């Protein structure tokens, strides 16, 4: 059982973070990226050609993370690979003990810098969850048994949902379908619309879904108004309110104001009902995530383990 799964089962507040994309550099580069996050982060998402831009594969990064003593969440998207290739990646992950898998449909190729590429989408994100579960049951999609050397495939499967993308009322039903397919956790797409996050989480609690599917909202740490505008225009599925960009533009120090916004959003998210943890995204290798966790009153991994499993709640 992965540490993430164990913590989700015990109800301990979990912290996950997105590994910044890398293009090489081996273990040394992974260590550099992890340096500041390590005290707080339970598991790191290795992205799969983030926003349809090619980078080191999530399988390579996930294996590397294990080798440097960090727990990976291997993201897989359906854009670039058919079902055979996805099965191969899942089996490759299982071979090295990469257990946390996050299944996504994926941004379209048009979001990236090679829009001329063929989009695959042989499966969708929900079918990919079911595929991971198929392998756990000891056979491939065809029904062919997994060889004796590959027995005991074990995953902790997660997915993503976007609470602020239309059709708003349907999002919780789609999340329920992901739980039906076998997902255990749901990392929520970053949203700047707090009312929509609330609406989604309240529905998750009311329907009992949050009991089966651990809700983990995402918090993105940006630094400039320019970065906010870029995210708004170039990252599919993010609704950036214009007044937030104006707030940063008119601030004395943009970076401080951006941090303040991230803090407000994170505090709001972690105090909502049914929230099992937070997922942090920061594009710069600095102490941003650690600073934010400290300000939120989230204990370090070590403290959380020593203090038992009570989820910490921030105070102001």
């Amino acid at each position, binding site marked *: 059982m992965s540490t993430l799964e164990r913590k989700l089962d015990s109800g301990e507040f979990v912290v996950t973070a997105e590994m910044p994309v890398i293009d090489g550099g081996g273990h040394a580069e992974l260590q550099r990226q992890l340096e500041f996050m390590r005290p707080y982060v339970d598991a790191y998402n290795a992205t799969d050609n983030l926003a349809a831009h090619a980078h080191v594969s999530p399988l390579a990064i996930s294996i590397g993370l294990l080798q440097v003593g960090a727990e990976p969440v291997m993201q897989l998207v*359906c*854009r670039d690979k058919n*079902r055979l290739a996805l099965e191969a990646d899942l089996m490759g992950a299982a071979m090295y003990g990469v257990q946390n898998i996050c299944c*996504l*449909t994926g*941004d*379209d190729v*048009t*979001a990236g810098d090679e829009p001329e590429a063929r*989009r695959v*989408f*042989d*499966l*969708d*994100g*929900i*079918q990919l969850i*079911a595929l991971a*579960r*198929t392998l756990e*049951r000891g*056979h*491939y*999609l*065809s*029904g*062919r048994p997994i060889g004796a050397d590959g027995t005991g495939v074990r995953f902790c499967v997660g997915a*993503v*949902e*976007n609470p*602020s*993308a*239309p*059709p708003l009322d*349907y999002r919780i*039903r*789609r999340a*329920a*379908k992901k739980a*039906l*397919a*076998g997902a255990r956790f749901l990392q929520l*797409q970053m949203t700047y619309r707090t009312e929509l996050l609330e609406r989604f989480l309240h529905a998750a609690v009311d329907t009992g879904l949050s009991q089966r599917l651990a809700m983990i909202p995402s918090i993105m740490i940006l630094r400039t108004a320019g970065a906010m505008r870029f995210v708004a225009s170039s990252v*599919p*599925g993010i*609704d950036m309110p214009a007044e937030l960009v104006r707030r940063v533009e008119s601030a004395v120090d943009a970076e401080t104001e951006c941090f303040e916004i991230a803090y407000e959003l994170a505090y709001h998210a972690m105090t909502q009902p049914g929230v099992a943890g937070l997922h942090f995204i920061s594009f710069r290798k600095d102490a941003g995530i650690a600073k934010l966790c400290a300000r939120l009153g989230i204990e370090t991994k070590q403290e959380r383990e020593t203090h038992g499993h009570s989820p910490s709640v921030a105070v102001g």
Partner: protein
Amino acid sequence: MNHGAARLVAKAEHLVKKPIWDCRMCGQCVLHDTGMTCPMTCPKTLRNGPCGGVRPDGHCEVKPEMRCVWLNAVERSDKLPLWKGHIDQLRPPVDNRLKDSSSWINLATGRDKQVPAGWPADVQ
């Protein structure tokens, strides 16, 4: 049914369904389950609901000029008196071998309901 007759039926099916639903002849029609909205017209050909990239105005991530196919599917399916809740069912992966064959024939023979042997039975 011989090959020629099957092709004739497929042609007839396309003739009917193309103008109404922009049918893509996947050969395993799920229109009833998706509010009489063809999921194969989604640029990502998603059969289990909208992706997370739907724009705030409800338009498609890939084709900004087009309304998300799944917005239509959800609205229509909730209004339909029949097939209640079918949209929330988990649809299995597409069988790519059935492309351009007649879903009418595949429905009659049960061929459209065949899933890979390893597909988990409890999610169907």
